[in-house]
């Protein structure tokens, strides 16, 4: 187990290195630099001076090594788009809306989804079941920005109950949270339902019933525990879905979060910000994978991490 953890952490470091090189090269290969404004062309001499100030005229590998040296010291540089603060300070600010909205979305959506999936599985072919199927199909197929647009049209434009966009007062949070919640709600409703049905059809449940155990005990002591394993594996796609969704939710609701900065950093060739964001996301995803695997192993006694194929 410890060997496995060490191996995984090492592989995260390797991934981090590969992604950072790829990204650095790719980013600089994107046509256009941060300081060639089309509307107000600057004097080439001034551009050269600014470029020199940021070290952009040096060979790429020198820039890369300098950058990585900084990263090792938690120095991610200064964002071109707001030179008054460091990248870290900007990210520290941008984290808040993304974490609050995304976090609340998952905290509300996931339990609701699990509950919906449970009821759907226990009351198969009832109206709850059909509702759960409809919600999970819609939630999993329709892109987030479409959901967001429909939410805005209904609640902000036609009913005029809630503000359509912005950040600040909690009233403005409601619609983006609902938009965020759609993904975990749909994912968990679908997978809880199928995991429960899978377990309920296993012979050991029939044996428990034959033993005369009450249905409540069967569900809570046996079925739920055995259904938890597939539900853990779903955490990962859901997490990725939510993180990706934040780009659209924040663009749609004009929230100044990580997703919004990600888009603007690409548009404005804000290299330091872009690098920092992508590296942070990579580490986050690797850790999410890692934690999901560990949780999976802890829940399932039959899985031995990194072990030899069992006979």
């Amino acid at each position: 187990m410890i060997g496995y953890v060490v191996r995984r952490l090492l592989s995260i470091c390797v991934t981090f290195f590969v992604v950072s090189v790829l990204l650095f090269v790719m980013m600089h290969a994107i046509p256009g630099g941060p300081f060639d404004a089309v509307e107000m062309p600057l004097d080439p001499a001034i551009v050269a001076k600014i470029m020199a100030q940021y070290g952009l005229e040096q060979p790429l590998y020198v820039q890369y090594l300098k950058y990585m040296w900084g990263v090792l010291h938690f120095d991610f540089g200064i964002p071109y788009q707001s030179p008054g603060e460091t990248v870290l300070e900007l990210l520290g600010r941008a984290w808040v809306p993304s974490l609050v909205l995304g976090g609340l979305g998952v905290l509300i959506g996931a339990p609701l989804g699990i509950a919906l999936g449970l009821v759907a599985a226990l009351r198969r072919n009832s109206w709850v079941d059909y509702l759960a199927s409809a919600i999970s199909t819609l939630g999993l197929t329709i892109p987030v920005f479409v959901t967001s647009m429909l939410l805005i049209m209904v609640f902000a434009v036609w009913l005029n109950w809630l503000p359509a966009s912005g950040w600040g007062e909690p009233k403005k949070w409601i619609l983006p949270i609902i938009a965020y919640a759609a993904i975990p709600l749909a994912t968990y409703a679908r997978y809880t339902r199928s995991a429960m049905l899978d377990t309920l059809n296993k012979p050991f449940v029939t044996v428990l019933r034959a033993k005369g155990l009450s249905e409540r005990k069967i569900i809570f002591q046996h079925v739920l525990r055995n259904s938890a394993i597939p539900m853990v594996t779903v955490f990962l796609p859901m997490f990725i879905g939510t993180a990706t969704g934040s780009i659209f939710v924040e663009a749609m609701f004009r929230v100044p979060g990580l997703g919004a900065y990600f888009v603007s950093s690409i548009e404005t060739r804000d290299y330091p910000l872009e690098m920092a964001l992508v590296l942070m996301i990579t580490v986050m995803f690797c850790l999410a994978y890692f934690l999901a695997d560990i949780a999976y192993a802890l829940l399932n006694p039959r899985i031995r991490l990194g072990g030899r194929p069992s006979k």
Partner: protein
Amino acid sequence: MTQDTSVIQASAPLETVGDLPAPRNPMYYAWRRFGANKAAVTSGAILAIIVLMAILAPLITPTSYEEQKFLTDNLAFPSASHWFGVDELGRDFYTRIVYGARISLSIGFVAAAFSVVIGLPLGALAGFYGGATDWFIMRVIEIFSVVPPLLAALLLAALAGGGFGSIVLIAALFGWVQVCLLVRGQVMAFRNREFIRASQALGAPPLFIIFRHLIPNSISPVIVGFVQAIPMAMMLEAGLSFLGVGIEPPTPSWGQMINIGISFMFFYWHLAVFPTLALAITVLATTLFGDGLRDALDPTLKG
């Protein structure tokens, strides 16, 4: 002394067909199952209508998609003459929605086709040869699974500068993984089947086995992978166009129209609602159709 020997004396009668039904290709049963799935058949019908509309676009629309013919009716609401109203540049919005289907569907289908072109041979190789080949292909796939497709696509689209071709390539770049995994799984399951061994015993070279046995037996996962890649590519295109790095105006794309629609939604709802509904319906129909095909062809592919 045992009694089994006496049983063995029984003679082998010539087996006859009798009144068996007509020979059935294994695919026949899949079609029967598909036909029984109402949601999938309905989605298929809706998808067929959308495809027809896209193909017949010039015949069923009043103008071309970029003609600013109705500047005097700028932003007009839906009416008998403009079913979906007029957009902010004086173009018939119904026309633009219909042409948007062309973009969405063609990107979906072409990208899915490319996904199969990349994923099928790689999956077959990984599944058939295993070992180092498989290890290498799986590591490549691992990299693709750590990087969320949309974020990478966003970077790549900024790099390639948007446009039809680069969107298709980006979608295929992420779409092949699923096809590859499906085909690999199928090939691995079949690689050690005895009919493969029998073919080897007859002297068949690896390519003969791959093309004559393994790929025909992978037809189900390939169809499933293809159909599931379509909505993925459509959503990717819409997402990128929504963020402004996809299809360039004036070519109509639903994602792009939704983005413009946000600015007008409080006063000119039609600019926001129609592209949103068009995209939602198309993606939903394609996904349900694909799920239906998957369940009909091979329920074990459900993942």
